[in-house]
């Protein structure tokens, strides 16, 4: 019997997955509760309780309506948007790592981020009428830019009705470079608008509201459901394409659907929250260590874990410094970067 060190992470006890589901689910709920509890404006526990009870009872409240508004219309949608965004990035990251069979794949790989940046920077550097900004033109442009960039990369990578995954990777890099150049060009010639664009590029959940949350959650939830349904197909794609085809997988359809759903989720997240690093890269790795690589479980738990991580990162971003918010991307990178290094260190030699 060949029982050794390599076998340790192998033994997948039957209750490991349910335990992970339960634990991560509780962590997510607890994160949301804690994150709603704290903010820059202190609201006492009693007041929070009264606000929630009064709102649920439909009663007019005795609490300062400003506090109710902060709790229910600013903080709650902000926290939920963080959860949805984290879930979107982690799910998309897990799916693309599977599709590309590359542990370094992240949701921004195929041009989503640079496309979104071009859209956002464009609308932020050319001075548009204020009503357009109020109508969400920046988010719309970021979304269109993201989807557009992925479409271009896909178009470049397709030949004869098939999509070559390595070509897609290269096309994504090229599209990202071009997008980066366009963004830089726009910023260079509109230096006076650089702060507005910079604020978007830093990313974050400030100024979220229920309407924005709704616009983001819809595509994210739809894509996440789609990706989870594609889980078994992503497992098969870990073999070579002939083998997957021989097992009855419509390989081309599975690839396109994976890229489509992952990009849709990422585009929706990025359009609302800007570019937030590391969540989509790190969260799937953590989940993989916990429950193994099978994609259906991996995708669902990545969504839950990514959501919780983002909620907590945003909480830290909001309350860490007395004088104001940190960009949440700084927090995710500060936690995710060292974590990722530790992960690589502990698994050195195991990554072929």
């Amino acid at each position, binding site marked *: 019997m060949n029982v050794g060190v390599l*076998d340790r992470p*192998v033994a997948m006890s039957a209750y490991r997955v349910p335990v992970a589901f339960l634990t991560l689910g509780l962590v997510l709920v607890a994160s949301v509760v804690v994150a709603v509890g704290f903010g820059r404006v202190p609201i006492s526990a009693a007041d929070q309780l009264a606000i929630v009870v009064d709102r649920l009872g439909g009663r007019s409240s005795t609490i300062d309506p400003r506090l109710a508004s902060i709790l229910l219309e600013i903080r709650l949608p902000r926290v939920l948007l963080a959860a949805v965004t984290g879930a979107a990035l982690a799910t998309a990251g897990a799916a693309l790592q599977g599709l590309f069979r590359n542990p370094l794949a992240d949701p921004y790989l195929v041009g989503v981020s640079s496309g979104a940046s071009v859209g956002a920077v464009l609308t932020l550097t050319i001075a548009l009428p204020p009503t357009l900004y109020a109508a969400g033109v920046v988010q719309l442009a970021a979304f269109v830019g993201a989807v557009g960039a992925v479409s271009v990369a896909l178009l470049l990578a397709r030949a004869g009705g098939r999509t070559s995954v390595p070509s897609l990777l290269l096309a994504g890099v090229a599209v990202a470079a071009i997008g980066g150049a366009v963004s830089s060009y726009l910023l260079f010639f509109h230096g006076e608008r650089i702060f507005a664009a910079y604020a978007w590029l830093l990313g974050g959940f400030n100024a979220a509201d229920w309407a924005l949350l709704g616009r983001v959650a819809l595509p994210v939830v739809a894509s996440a459901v789609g990706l989870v349904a594609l889980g078994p197909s992503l497992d*098969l794609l870990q073999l070579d394409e002939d083998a997957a085809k021989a097992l*009855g997988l419509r390989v081309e359809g599975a690839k396109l659907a994976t890229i489509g759903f992952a990009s849709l989720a990422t585009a929706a997240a990025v359009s609302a929250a800007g570019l937030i690093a590391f969540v989509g890269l790190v969260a799937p790795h953590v989940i993989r260590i916990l429950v193994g690589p099978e994609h259906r479980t991996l995708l669902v738990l990545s969504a839950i874990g990514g959501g919780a991580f983002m909620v907590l990162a945003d909480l830290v971003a909001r309350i860490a410094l007395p004088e104001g918010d940190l960009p949440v991307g700084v927090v995710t990178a500060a936690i995710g970067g060292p974590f990722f290094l530790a992960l690589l260190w502990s698994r050195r030699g195991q990554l072929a």
Partner: protein
Amino acid sequence: MIGPGIAIHRAWVTVGDRALLADVTLQLRQRELIAIVGRNGAGKSTLLRLMAGFLEPSRGEVVLEGRPLRAIAAGERARRLGFLAPARLPSPAGYTVRQVVGWMRFAHHSWWRATGADDASVAYAIASLELTGLAERRLDTLSDGERQRVWLAGLVAQDTEFVLLDEPTSHLDPTHAIESLRTIRSWATAGRGVAIVLHDLDAALAVADRIVLVDGGRIAFDEPVARVPLDELGRRLGIRLAEITLDGRRRVLAQGLGGA
């Protein structure tokens, strides 16, 4: 004109103006094992991929039980026809033997359902290849021989009428190679139609019912083992063959190694 099983009729596969296969006609019925032999680049793998439906013939046709292969949906095809090139398969990290064998049941479920690691046929396939003790082990921690058994167990689980295998014994030591070929032979005896691409001519003669020699994109001959023209076989492969008889079967040895 076109019989049962998988039938290729006067098919051409061309890339640009180069013919990978030229005017090929071949039939694989159930309950038989054919071995496809030939030099590297002769078109053996192309022929197998044509039979699997991965390639469209530019002329001619490929049919499965009378229906054009391209008209058969991916799922149905995968329930009737298995294909594997074990030597070319990666062993994705972290998956258990049971999970990977379960993937082979993909076509037996609706596409969104998890693959069938919990199916009875997976348990049977694992048991039949004597993998029960390894079922929860990670694929990437197995030896080459163990992993070969996993792929064969997968083909058992896939439970198809026809099985196509590209070089199933390369990278295997003689023990595992013989073990694999015995398993594959037993499938044909039990009623499946099996085609394998092999470089080992002696092994081909030992297990196959028919030998198909591919040379330069054409089928040079397609003969029952007893009638294989060994002189032509040797000439086309550029080696000299010595015929022997073992356990009542024709076998061959390659000459030219050793001696002067």
